[in-house]
Structures are given as structure tokens and as C-alpha cells.
């Protein structure tokens, strides 16, 4: 809810200590994450950036208790990740919208509330609020397949927001969109984040996207997955399309790009 730079809050929303994850496969062990420490403050918007296969999705899943780490501890709002999931602190959206075609758009958004046992009338009202937020009210009674990819993704985001989660985990939710829709949804995402004050962990492949959205960009390096650098982004909110044109924005972008290239090509780092 901060109006200047965010993450002014002091309390820690997500605390990762010594997180490692090794997948055992038929062709040997894969170390997806190696000894990761990360503290994410309450209300932060943190982007995970890094080359393909560096463990971004795995880290997100560890935070969301969809993957159990081989070593280390995860604490979310003072409890374990498992407890946080059980008490429904998370909203998750993934690269594929994952909507159910046998449900209308509204009923897709209602799903988490239905699981939670919220009554029919309240469920519907909350779903309508969320659809309003992503500007899809007029499509409430459509089937997902009748919507464009970008609209489907917005429904998935509305669904992730439906339970008013304290922590929003998003794995490349805008990855498949064209540039215009993507920037539009980035603005909406910021608006929603600022309106709700949730903590967001956001996986992306796009440097401008990470810089535009985040209070902090976390660059990861592959084999094994480690945190290479953490870059605070001190651009004031609200960020608009004009923000993208400012020197500060472009400097931040350049900075992140350098760090990312250092990860991609260690031998040519600093060029």
C-alpha cells in the first residue's frame, strides 16, 4: 500500500534458509536448487529471473509447498509452507491458464472459494468482484475456450486472487502474451498488488517486465540453481508507461541485464 518505493514494511513474509532440491531421475541426480537463502518482506513484489532450467519454477513450488525441498526450511508468515498452504495463504497462477472448460469463467474463479466452503451467494459475489478487477465482467458466463489467451490468463489471475491470498505465486503468467496485452496486464497486476498489499513472487524471462513490476529482482544462476544477485529496484510507484521511458528505468534495466549476462556467460562477465 506504500505510495513511494514499496517494501518499506519490515516484517518478513517469506523466509527461505538453506533450501536445496535434488531431483532423482533415471539419468542421475539433478540439483535444481543449491543452498538458497532468501528473505522476502511483507508486501514486496519480487521477480525471479534467470536462464532456463536454473530452478525458478522449482523455487516457486518450494515456497508454495508443491515441491518438498531436500534440505532447508521455508517459513511463510511465521509458519511452515505446508501450514500456509493448508490455511490457504497462497494464490497461484502458472504459465498455462489451466482453466476448466466444463465451468464458466465465473465458476472457474469461484473454484478456490468452493474448495474453501464459501457459500454460493458470497462465492459468486467475490468472483464477480475479481472479474471486475481484471475487467472481464461481461465474460462471466462464457466458457474459457471462448476467450483469447490473454483473457484466459486474466481469468487465471482472478482465480488466484479470489481467496485474497497473503502470498501470490506466479510462474510466467504473462509469458505467452503479445507485447501490448502483456504491458496492459503488467499495469493491472501492479494496480491489484497495490490495492491488496499481498506479497508477490513472480517468475519471468523478461528483464523489462521484472524491472517494471518489482521492488526487487532476484537473478538466479543455473547448475546448480543458486541466487546470483539481488537487485532492489528503487523506482517510485505508481509506475506507468512513462516510467519505462525514464533514464532511471533504463539504468535499472541495464543493471539487471548485466547481472543476467554475467550468469549466462561467466567468462565474459562485465563486458
Amino acid at each position: 500500500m506504500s505510495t513511494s518505493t514499496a517494501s518499506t514494511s519490515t516484517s518478513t513474509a517469506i523466509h527461505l534458509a538453506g533450501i536445496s532440491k535434488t531431483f532423482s531421475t533415471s539419468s542421475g541426480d539433478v540439483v535444481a536448487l543449491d543452498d538458497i537463502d532468501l528473505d522476502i518482506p511483507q508486501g514486496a513484489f519480487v521477480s525471479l529471473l534467470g536462464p532456463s532450467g536454473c530452478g525458478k519454477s522449482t523455487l516457486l513450488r518450494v515456497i508454495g509447498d508443491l515441491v518438498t525441498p531436500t534440505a532447508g526450511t521455508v517459513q511463510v508468515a511465521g509458519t511452515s509452507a505446508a501450514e500456509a498452504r493448508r490455511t490457504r495463504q497462497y494464490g497461484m497462477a502458472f504459465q498455462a491458464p489451466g482453466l476448466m472448460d466444463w465451468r464458466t469463467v465465473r465458476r472457474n474463479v469461484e473454484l478456490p472459494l468452493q474448495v474453501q466452503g464459501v457459500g454460493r451467494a458470497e462465492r459468486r459475489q467475490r468472483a464477480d468482484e475479481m472479474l471486475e478487477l481484471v475487467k472481464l465482467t461481461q465474460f462471466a458466463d462464457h466458457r474459457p475456450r471462448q476467450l483469447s489467451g490473454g483473457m484466459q490468463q486474466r481469468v487465471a489471475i482472478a482465480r488466484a486472487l479470489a481467496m485474497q491470498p497473503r502470498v501470490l505465486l506466479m510462474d510466467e503468467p504473462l509469458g505467452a502474451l503479445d507485447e501490448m496485452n502483456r504491458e496492459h496486464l503488467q499495469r493491472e497486476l501492479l494496480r491489484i498488488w497495490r490495492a491488496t498489499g499481498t506479497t508477490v513472487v513472480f517468475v519471468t524471462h523478461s528483464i523489462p517486465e521484472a524491472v517494471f513490476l518489482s521492488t526487487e529482482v532476484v537473478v538466479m544462476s543455473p547448475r546448480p540453481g543458486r541466487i546470483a544477485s539481488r537487485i532492489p529496484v528503487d523506482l517510485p510507484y505508481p509506475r506507468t508507461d512513462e516510467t519505462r521511458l525514464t533514464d532511471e528505468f533504463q539504468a535499472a534495466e541495464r543493471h539487471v541485464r548485466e547481472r543476467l549476462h554475467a550468469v549466462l556467460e561467466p567468462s565474459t562477465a562485465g563486458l
Partner: protein
Amino acid sequence: MAAIRTAPRPSATAAPQAAPPSPARARRGRPQHLGRVLRDLGTAALVIAAALLAWEGYKALGQATGDLVPLTSVPLPVATDDAAMPHVWQVLAALAGPASTASDQTLLAYYLQQTSVTLREAAYGLALGAVVGVLLALLMRQLPWLGRASMPWLVVSQTIPLVALAPIVVVWIGGAGFPSWVAVTVISAYLAFFPVTLNTATGLLSADATHVELMRSVAASPLQTLLLVRVPAAVPSFFTGLRLAATASVVGAVVGELSAGAGLGIGRAILTAAYYYSLAPANLYAAVLVASLAGVVFVQVIALAERLVLSKREN
């Protein structure tokens, strides 16, 4: 048919305000169903016409060559005299004629009456088989060890020849004091449950991994995941199984009637016609014809129900 499309389809415009869906995605309505039904009926008529032509053609050929393959001395596999292969019109005439010497009911009316008995048994058998089949599939899904342990037995149950099993069922159920149609229904259900179990079980496993993960992320109970994700995902496969089961249930009902010995039904009528075959060969063909057509109609009704349910779900 109800494939879940996760492939994103970015809209062509930037449109911050949502654009209405294009007419191409407009819902499919009833008229299309009617069109499909009419087309299916047309196809069926063509198939029947072709079968009749083949029948009469073969018979004419046999009559011309003295039941030999033309220009050889190799005998045709089936004799073509009127006792073995009555003309189509003889069969139709038999249907139009009286059911028996002392009856003013036509044979067609009589057979249709008997067929309605059989189809009722088949419908009960299909319903029972579908319920048992779905319950088994759910059980096997929730208790995988039970699924692994029971699958070989289910397969064995379907490989035992029905003609061997049916009399046993008839004796058991008759011994318990039930009328013969109950035994027939059970035999019909016995054939019907298997395709339902198999297809529904496959459907339950086909649930989208992202949907299952989503349910986990919101701490859904296993029962909620089953009912809200796996069961809906299994509906198309269930119907595939049900369509196969519809065919099987009719076969089961007819064979069950043959074994039941007493009672009504087209199976019984076929048995009687076979018994008097040398006196009235056309009657047997007439009975088989009526039974087959009724079976086709029965299966088509189920297929239509499938289409209605799936299209209602999708739109």
C-alpha cells in the same frame, strides 16, 4: 471432443477493454444436432440398401451358377435356395403376415413387442452396469492397490464365455425366487459394466496435471479433487464406455433370454424361430432383422444422449 485447450491464443488487438468473442466461436445450437441425426440416418439407410443389394446379388449369383463360384466347380460357402437364404421380400412378407395361425397380430408387431421387453432388460442392465462400472472405476482410482489387484479378475470375468456363464446366473437368480427378466438384466449388466469401468478409470487418470496441482495449491481434500477435477475430466471417456456398454447390454439381454428359456423377449422369439426354421425360414431372418435394427436404435439413443450432455457442458 471436450479437449481442454490450454494453448494460449493471444488476441490480435491490444484491447485493454475486452473485445467480444468472434462469431467463429459462437455456440453450436440444436439445428446442428438435428442435421447430424439426419445425416446419420441417411448413412444408415445407405448401409441397409447396400446390404440388401449384396444379399440379393449373392442369391441371384448362386441361383444362376447352381451354388458354384462362377467358372469354377468350387461351391459357394452358403447355399442360396429359399430355405437357406429367403428373398428380402419373403422376409418382409413374413413380417407383414400373422404372428401365428391363430393370431390377428402381425409378426412385426409381435417381434416389436418382444423387442421392447428385451430393450427394457437391456436398459436396466445398462443402467446397473453403468452404476457398477463407475463405482468400480472410482474405487480403483482412490485405492490403486485395489485397482491393480482386481484388474486381472475383471479381465477374466469378460473372457469367460457368456453362454457358459448365463445358465449359471439364471439358475442362481431363479433359485432366489426372482422372475427371469431379473436374471437377464444381471447378465446384460455383467457385459455392460466392463467398458464403463475401463473407460471411466482411464478418464479419471486423464485429469490435467495443472488442474490437480491447482487443487493442491488451495488445499483441496482428495474427495474435492476427485469430484471437482477428476470426475468432470472423466465424463467424455465415461460416455465412450457407455456407448460400448450399450451394444454389450443388448447382446447380453438377448443371450440372457436364450439361456433363461422361459419368459418373453426377442431372444426367446429368435430361439422359437430357429426351432421352426425348416417350416418358416423367413421368420428367423425377420426376428434377427428386428433385433439388429432395435439394437442400432438403442445404441443411437445413448450416442445422442452423449452428444447432448457433452455439448451442453461445452457451451
